[in-house]
């Protein structure tokens, strides 16, 4: 149900461009439903996940 994937933005530039990745780390949730730029503490990441899933 839950998958966590680290993606090398240099190796997969098309994917990084698709999600407009400009800085790292950037977390993309469910193919762009949500996004978190930078290091997010757990609570804020959880809030962003909830927001993305509600879309």
């Amino acid at each position, binding site marked *: 149900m839950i998958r966590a994937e680290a*993606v090398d933005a240099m190796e997969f530039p098309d994917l990084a461009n698709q999600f407009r990745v400009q800085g790292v780390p950037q977390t993309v949730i469910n193919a762009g439903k949500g996004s978190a730029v930078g290091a997010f503490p*757990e609570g804020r990441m959880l809030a962003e996940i909830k927001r993305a899933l509600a879309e």
Partner: protein
Amino acid sequence: MEKLLNEQVTGQIQQAFAELQQPVQILFFGSQTECDYCNETQQLLSEVSALDERVHLSVHDLQTDAALAAQYQVDKAPAIVIAGKDGETILDLGIQFSGIPSGYEFSTLINDILLASKRDSGLGNETREFLKTLKQPLHMQVFVTPT
């Protein structure tokens, strides 16, 4: 072929692997077509897995092992799936690294292996309770650069 990891690094990894608990299965997916870092990634994993008998490595190809790739939802190469191993059973923990884990990202690989071995996400209760209620798949892609 010349080793990618020097003695100092292998010593550090062995020290970290002293904390391993349950066996870990690493599934490497390479590709015959357009894969600049597949050989290097495979060699790196081979050297890492040789450092501890609890770390197992299997080597696969994105095209010829398409069914297995689909099972683990792998669609790129090189890709590394870090799973648990319980006897002959592979436990899919949903952890994947796409690309070569070099530079700063090498420690991500080592930490992923330790995490999978502990079979514990380390997440807080609130997060765990919410994730238990998930009704749709959650895919989180963390874009990183190796240097």
